[in-house]
């Protein structure tokens, strides 16, 4: 999956590093890290990434609101939602707005890679 661009929208520097370490050795380019959804939407416009990893709990604009804003801009946008909580109501809410993949924190590199490849393969 060489050359695909990934944008990380997460207020945790640890997650940004974890995503880079999982995906960059596999040919992905992790273009940037937005610390909240508002900046994330701006960075989406700037980078036009192929995949976005999106945290649920963030200041200013949370993951659900950010996903809505991104999907409104680009209905085909590929989002993996990350959360320390994995309850079904959150997943249902996200699925309803068009998020197709979820991953629970902490995640293994292989796990993230598999989900990103699955999204891109669709």
């Amino acid at each position, binding site marked *: 999956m060489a050359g695909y661009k990934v944008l990380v929208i997460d*207020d*945790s520097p640890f997650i940004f590093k974890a995503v880079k370490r999982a995906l960059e050795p596999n040919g992905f380019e992790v273009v940037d890290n937005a610390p909240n959804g*508002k900046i994330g939407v701006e960075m989406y416009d700037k980078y036009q990434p192929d995949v976005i990893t999106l945290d649920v709990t963030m*200041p200013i604009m949370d993951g659900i609101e950010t996903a809505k804003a991104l999907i409104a801009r680009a209905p085909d946008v590929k989002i993996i939602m990350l959360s320390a909580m994995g309850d079904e109501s959150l997943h249902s809410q996200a699925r309803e707005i068009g998020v197709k993949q979820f991953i629970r924190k902490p995640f293994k590199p292989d796990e993230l890679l598999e989900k990103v490849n699955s999204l891109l393969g669709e």
Partner: protein
Amino acid sequence: MSEVLELKDHLIKTCEEFLPRKGIRFSFIKEKAENTLNSGDPINLLVGLSKGMEGNFVVGMSKKAALYVICGMTNQEEVFSIDNIARNSLCDFVAAICGQTLAKVPTKKLISLSSPTLVTGERICLMISKTPARKCFFRMNDTNFTIAYNIEGEL
């Protein structure tokens, strides 16, 4: 979209309404943005918020200020030590200040406070959010106290 709340005016109003009733004289000194990690007071009272408004609220004080608060909250002339009843009264104090301040924010969102926690020690540092918090400095009788917060909500 939620926004970081500016609570200085509401805090001052709450203190004006609440502290004199407890026999505590106070005055507002200043408010400033704090670094993410900042130094704390010897006695700190933390309340967390979630759901409609999310964040943390910390009242920091010296032992002297704490004794004044305990006197006021328990309706005593003088208090010399901090026992269990005193600790409870300090927790009631932070819950009252936090709750009454946030009740002044024009929002339809529910305010849910967690259980207050009392944290004491020396050379305390605290980090209540990943983004810089705001801290209000007050004078209380002949000592000081602070209120630090980083709270987001939808208005």
